[in-house]
């Protein structure tokens, strides 16, 4: 019995030892694998934590997106949220526009203006012209009013004299005052053979480039006008150019073109016509066979003598 018990104890002890040894052996043999297993478990744990974080973030984002979609679908809500941002950006742009875009805008505008120069001029020219015209008319009205006011306030002997002259001639005192302020002056006189357009004589305060060509072109213009309008009896009488007026007066076989600056009205025209008529009858031959130096120089000299100090006022 005792033997059996001892034998059983021995066997049990042997099993324990075996198991111990087996465990020992296992721990020696599987040391690396166990380490890897622990690492793997730890890694899985970390991954689980990450997934949980991500899941939470996604849930929050989903909430955000849903709120944004809701805001977009609801304009007033969207406006409330976005407007302040836009306003802030706009204010920033306003404040810093010159620094941020000034150069680009300047270059672009410059390029566009250069490229569309003709179109701009075409569009703006009439507008500017009208503005200038309106401005000049406005200033002229003011000027006339001032002149008239000045005259109205004056009761001198001179004023009475002017008033009587005005009554007789019909010319307003304002017009007289303007004439006094802007003297009328003969700038150039051309005496031109009617048919050929050749220059018979010429006088100018300043030397014109080519009076012969001007005489020919004036004649061509007269020819063109009479041909275009099919009227043999009518003639071109005046040509206006900036602040100058060219009066054309026709005589028997020649005509005159007189360039006048200042106020060149009907009275000036009449005075000029009478003077030129007298001049022509004395100094311009009616039967001209040839235009040579002596004829040209003679007529030109007489023109200078007559019109250099001619008073048109």
């Amino acid at each position, binding site marked *: 019995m005792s033997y059996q018990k001892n034998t059983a104890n021995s066997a049990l002890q042997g099993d324990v030892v075996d198991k111990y040894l087996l465990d020992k052996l296992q721990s020696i043999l599987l040391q690396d694998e166990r380490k890897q297993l622990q690492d793997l478990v730890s890694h899985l744990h970390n991954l689980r934590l990450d997934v949980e974080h991500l899941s939470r973030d996604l849930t929050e984002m989903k909430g955000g997106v849903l709120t944004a979609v809701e805001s977009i679908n609801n304009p007033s809500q969207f406006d409330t949220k976005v407007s302040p941002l836009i306003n802030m950006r706009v204010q920033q742009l306003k404040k810093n526009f010159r620094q941020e875009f000034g150069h680009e805008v300047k270059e672009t505008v410059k390029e566009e203006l250069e490229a569309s120069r003709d179109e701009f001029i075409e569009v703006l020219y009439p507008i500017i012209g009208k503005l200038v015209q309106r401005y000049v008319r406005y200033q002229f009205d003011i000027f006339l009013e001032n002149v008239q006011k000045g005259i109205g306030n004056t009761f001198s002997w001179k004023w009475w004299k002017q008033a009587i002259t005005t009554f007789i001639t019909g010319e307003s005192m304002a017009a007289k005052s303007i004439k006094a302020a802007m003297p009328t002056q003969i700038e150039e006189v051309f005496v031109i053979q009617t048919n*050929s357009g050749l220059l018979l004589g010429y006088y100018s305060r300043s030397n014109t480039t*080519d009076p*012969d060509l001007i005489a020919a072109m004036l004649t061509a213009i007269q020819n*063109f006008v009479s*041909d275009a309008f099919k009227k043999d009896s009518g003639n071109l009488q005046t040509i206006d150019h900036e602040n100058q007026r060219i009066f054309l007066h026709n005589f028997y076989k020649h005509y005159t073109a007189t360039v006048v600056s200042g106020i060149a009205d009907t009275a000036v025209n009449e005075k000029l016509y009478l003077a030129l008529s007298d001049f022509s009858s004395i100094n311009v031959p009616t039967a001209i066979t040839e235009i040579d*130096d002596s004829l040209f120089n003679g007529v030109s000299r007489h023109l200078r003598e007559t019109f250099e100090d001619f008073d048109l006022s």
Partner: protein
Amino acid sequence: MKSITKKIILTGSFSVGKTSLISRFVYQSFSAEYKTTLGVKIDRKTVELDNCIVNMMIWDIGGEQKQARVPETYFLGSGGVIYVFDISRPSGFSQITEDIAYLTAKLKDVPVVVVGNKIDLLDVVTLEEVKQIIPVSVDFYTSAKEGTNVENVFTHLAQKMVNES
């Protein structure tokens, strides 16, 4: 030396080279680009002869198929006429006789010089053949492009005007 001024008319059908003759004579230049003359174009050139200086006011009149269609006022007071036709365009030759007759009737006692222009477009043989079929007496055959005879046309007319005045 005596100096006189005369109005010269340069006329003929369109595209015969009138303006090119003027450009060659006055400015010593030629352009192959064709620009039609509208109305009239006026230039001046002084020609110095042995006994006289002639100041020419040259009226280059826009070409018309018939001279009768040119505004009459352009012809008034002219001292000489240069009638130009295109030598390389025989289809226009039939009009020359009528045109010259019209001009001489309109401008009595005014010298008319007849000029066949563009000889540079024909070779020597063809030019001689073409000369045979021209219905009027031609004073000069010219080439505005190459400058052939251009000076001679104007000098000849200047001399004629001085002789007849």
